[in-house]
């Protein structure tokens, strides 16, 4: 008898909680999304249209790129925006650089790996330079090389492939 009462109470609580919809509280949602890693963001993008739009917001990715960096050098934002945005920066340069340099991967509870180490100036500079080269190669030089090559310039594609280290 008492057991049933407890269950009912719990059910009511759960119902009450369910009425709280995260989608109504965008600030909260964004705060949460800010703390996710790239893979989780990708998963989150598949939830619904709202979440998809949110995860494409470049500032989320900016946070992902440089969250561990103390004040960024000025003007980075405009530059990155011009060269294709933070999301592209992350996918093309930041992530591979981090993985290749094995910047202190730490396993979080669920098993996803999040970089905990603070970026140094050098790594930032390198990533940005590589990003710039990538932009030049793929956007500007893209069609010119060998006229009609189907695969894109692969200077940085090597970063996308796992390396046999």
């Amino acid at each position: 008898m008492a057991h049933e009462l407890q269950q009912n109470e719990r059910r009511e609580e759960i119902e009450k909680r369910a009425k709280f919809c995260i989608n109504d509280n965008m600030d909260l949602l964004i705060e949460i999304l800010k703390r996710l890693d790239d893979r989780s963001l990708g998963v989150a993008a598949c939830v619904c249209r709202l979440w998809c739009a949110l995860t494409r917001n470049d500032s989320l990715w900016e946070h992902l790129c440089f969250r561990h960096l103390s004040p960024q050098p000025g003007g980075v934002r405009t530059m990155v925006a011009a060269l294709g945005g933070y999301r592209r920066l992350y996918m093309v340069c930041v992530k591979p650089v981090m993985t290749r340099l094995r910047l202190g991967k730490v396993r979080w509870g669920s098993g996803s790996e999040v970089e905990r180490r603070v970026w140094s100036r050098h790594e930032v500079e390198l990533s940005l330079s590589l990003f710039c080269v990538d932009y030049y190669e793929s956007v500007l030089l893209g069609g010119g090389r060998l006229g009609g090559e189907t695969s894109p310039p692969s200077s940085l594609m090597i970063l996308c492939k796992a390396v046999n280290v």
Partner: protein
Amino acid sequence: MKRDRDRGKVEAAVSGSATAPSAAKTKMWAEPPQPDAGMDELFAVLGYKVKSSDMADVAEKLEQLEMAMGTTMEEGAAVLSTDTVHFNPSDLPGWVESMLSELSNSYNFAMIQSQIGISGESSSSNQISFSNDRQAVQQDGAKFIYDDDLRAIPGGAIFSNKQKDVVDSENENKRMKSSTGSEFTEKGSSLAGAADAATAARPMVLVDSQETGVRLVHTLMACAEAVQQENMKLADALVKHVGRLAVSQVGAMRKVATYFAEALARKIYKIYPQDSLETSYSDVLQMHFYDTAPYLKFAHFTANQAILESFAGATRVHVIDFGLNQGMQWPALMQALALRPGGPPTFRLTGIGPPQPDNTDALQEVGWKLAQLAESIGVEFEFRGFVANSLADLDANMLDIRPSNVETVAVNSVFEMHRLLARPGAVDKVLNSIKAMNPKIVTIVEQEANHNGNVFLDRFNEALHYYSTMFDSLESCGLSQPNSQDIVMTEVYLGRQICNVVAYEGAERVERHETLAQWRGRMKSAGFEPEHLGSNAFKQASMLLAVFAGGDGYRVEENDGCLMLGWHTRSLIATSAWRLRAAV
């Protein structure tokens, strides 16, 4: 009884069916041999002429032949179907020898040798007897001349001289011994009939030839030596043999051997490709090289770092690039300039390039693309292109250099300076022009090798070592490349360089690489002082390598202010920075 066993044993061997001959052999040799020196009567009955005194020898060789045939059959090699003419099979010793020598040229040779050496059987010093006198006798005769004059192969030369080394299998099998063995010289020259006393001074190499790879290298070096001695007939035979050996290899060794063999063939037959083909694809090929291997990236990043540091505080900067190609070096520099504290300077770029065969203005196109990039990242940009066949054709006046209080100048040369060494006086003229430009910094990236020696053979050996290392390093890159076309093009790019170093001479041989030490001497005597590349450059280079190369075999080294990138212990390219010596 004894004779029956004799006959049985030999017949079994000849028919190729293995019946534990060694057991029979030991029994056989326990009995004393025939005292008479004439032909063995029993063999004569069968139709074979064998001297009794030779029988031990012949039996041993038959055994080896049987082993060789057995192993060859396993491998399925078509060696036995080569067009070799054997005369007089009734001359059993001679026939056996010719069969053995033919088989010995397949890659089982090494295996047989190791079997013979290690099995510990009593081995006379003439196991596979390529005795000199025998061959000298037959040199002019129509008999025993194979298609490719295999007597000249150093493999045989090694074995008849160094039998004792075969058993000593403890020797380290170093593939790339760069010194030539003078035993090759002796064999080659005695067979060819020309003794070259000068080459006798070279150090001898004792090598354990257990791999075809080593044989391949030896054959290449012997061929180069033949070319040096103008013995084209021998060189021709050897180069064909290299082609055959190369096919049995895999990976880097095969590619290197193929390219070198091709280059040697060009030199021997004096067939050179059209000039127009050379220049038209060089840009494209270099792009592939940029994508595949970290060398060019290393070059660009280290040079950029030096230039960036020298531009500190300048409001107008001017970079003169001696080899613009696709302008891959400059986006990174522009980006770094854009983000520097205080904002970017006005960036002016002068690009120099060769004339294009189809008369398109490639330089202007590159300039335009760089301008677009500059606009995106907010850097004021100015571009000018100069077409010149050679850097020596240019003058500082043409470049419209503004006075130094207005703009800061940097001169950059990646793999361009060595070409000037093809024409006498060109490099000095260019260095003077550079001085006239009054640069704050001059960055030079060059291959770290001496491919400009006067002696062809030395050049060849150096190049062989250098490009083998280079190709080895590419093999490791190949593992992570999604696009194999890149790798192929990169190999073509390097293959062209190989061809140029080996096959060309005079003004057309432009790949005259020199070592950092040599360039240092040259720059210092021309009036430049070294500018040390700082720790920033080193860190960035190390990071770059860790990102792009998996950190496997590549090494960044600092050499008295210059940075070198190498594969394992061998440095392959070097970046150095220079400034004008302050007037005293």
